[in-house]
């Protein structure tokens, strides 16, 4: 007589034919990566260059602009960060991180050479290929430039495939401007860059006010056909993208051609912990990049 249950090792059961997403092993799978440089951007933000140590794994790691990774420091914490570098560079990414809490404060103190864990990439990206042949408006408020920078890098690398490209960027004051050292390079790639700050200091030469002000100026220079053939990516705090998207909508850009990135609390990145749910949509699976039409239909999104 036998009544002993057999132990089933689920890992041996894994189905090889699927990709990583379907593999039990993928759940806590962590790329080990090293912080190779730390570049201070502002008082609050640093740019970290993070390289996956195993070159094979590094090659595997590919992503779209707009996607994010979960970065982990053992014992300290794990949190989502948008990838801020060119999608052409695999396994060697840049993250622009603001000091906001436990993990990010600790990160601001660590030295080069510290090893971190990376999971991902997760979430949806900006549909860059769909936008080819069209004008693009890249609109960023504050830290929103971080995910946008990856899209910019994509545009730079494929500049000829896009029509006019405008970056509109606004921050609170001039000391908070991110990636200032790159502005000239962007302009050199035939990208128009307009910057506005809310609270100018004495050295500030550019315009002052809210980002909508600069947009109004810009829109005055554009005609109907421009808006017909335009995609927009808007990254920033909810109030900002709400106003901006409403303006764009008034110019008859379809809401499905505007993309925004939502930020929610996340503990897994894989549609399990529910912390990122908007209404009941997982930001980590269906987002963080949504078209504005979807956002309008999500309860409690804005």
């Amino acid at each position, binding site marked *: 007589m036998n009544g002993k249950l057999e132990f089933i090792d689920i890992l041996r059961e894994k189905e090889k034919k699927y990709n990583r997403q379907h593999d039990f092993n993928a759940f806590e799978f962590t790329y080990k990566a090293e912080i190779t440089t730390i570049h201070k951007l502002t008082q609050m933000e640093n740019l970290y260059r993070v390289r996956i140590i195993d070159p094979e794994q590094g090659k595997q790691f590919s992503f779209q602009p707009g996607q994010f990774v979960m970065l982990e420091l053992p014992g300290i914490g794990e949190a989502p960060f948008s990838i801020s570098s060119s999608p052409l560079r695999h396994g060697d990414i840049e993250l622009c991180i603001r000091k906001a809490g436990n993990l990010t*404060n*600790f990160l601001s103190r*660590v030295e080069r050479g510290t090893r971190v864990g990376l999971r991902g990439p997760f979430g949806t990206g900006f549909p860059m290929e769909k936008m080819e042949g069209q004008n693009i408006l890249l609109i960023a408020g504050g830290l929103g430039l971080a995910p946008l920078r990856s899209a910019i890098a994509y545009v730079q690398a494929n500049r000829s495939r896009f029509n006019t490209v405008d970056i509109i960027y606004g921050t609170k004051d001039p000391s908070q401007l991110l990636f200032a050292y790159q502005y000239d390079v962007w302009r050199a790639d035939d990208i128009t860059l307009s910057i506005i700050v809310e609270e100018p200091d004495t050295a500030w030469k550019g315009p002052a006010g809210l980002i909508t002000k600069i947009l109004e100026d810009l829109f005055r220079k554009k005609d109907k056909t421009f808006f017909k053939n335009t995609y927009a990516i808007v990254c920033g705090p909810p109030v900002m993208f709400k106003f901006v998207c409403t303006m764009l909508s008034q110019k008859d850009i379809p809401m499905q051609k505007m993309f925004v990135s939502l930020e929610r609390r996340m503990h897994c990145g894989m549609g399990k912990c529910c912390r990122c749910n908007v209404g009941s949509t997982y930001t980590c699976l269906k987002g963080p990049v949504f078209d504005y039409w979807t956002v309008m239909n999500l309860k409690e999104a804005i």
Partner: protein
Amino acid sequence: MADLKPVRTYLGMPLYRPKTAFFELSSCEGCQLQLLNNEASLLDFLSLLDIVNFREAMTEKSDEFEIAFIEGSVTRSDEVERLKEIRKTANTLVAFGSCACFGGVNQMKNRLGSEWVKKEVYGDHPVESGFARPLEDIVTVDLKIFGCPIKKKEVEKIIINIALGKAVVHPVYPVCMECKANENICLFDLGEPCLGPITRGGCDSWCPNSRFGCWGCRGPADDANIDQLREIMKKHGFSEETLRDRLECFGGFSKYTEAFRKNPEKKKEGK
């Protein structure tokens, strides 16, 4: 206590080993005793701190410290002075235990008026004593460690976070959350009152684990719905007094208990 172990690091970052002092005002010293109590990890724990002042356990003392853990409530003028002195030296002042955080059981006398209280215990013999007050009535408190007594595990975690430079976050949810995870039978089902639904968690539902209703020693949870608990108590047949006794016990709910009892002297003495 001189350096026990060489400076250690975590992920390449040097650990902060603060010069630490322990003080006690009006209290039972149980919280300090709890520190010596987690025997298994005691040596590791002590090595994280450079203890320069711990009267309950050591003779040597020094007035140079960065972190001061203060147990007990303030009831006398000399304690006010001592506390202010400590505040001058300490970078971080920690209110340690419910007496320091809320006044603790000591503050229950406040409802009776100091003069009556003195007479009841000492007759005509003169003694000095005012209201029992939490530390934050006198000085700025940087960190609170709740509980009567404090939970050693929690203190360990806090000390680890201090060593790492990590922020200390307390649970924001009520005791019920942990009580359910421990699969306890709810005290209300057993016909006993409990403050678990409104009291800050973090104690791992210490009392309900023993089928003993919570008395709220850790003060209110972040979104405590006290009005609703009042309804619930009523529905389960507990008197207003039963609820008040518990709310009053450790002082954490003083904001609400004042509505129960008018406290004339409190205003007079003020801050």
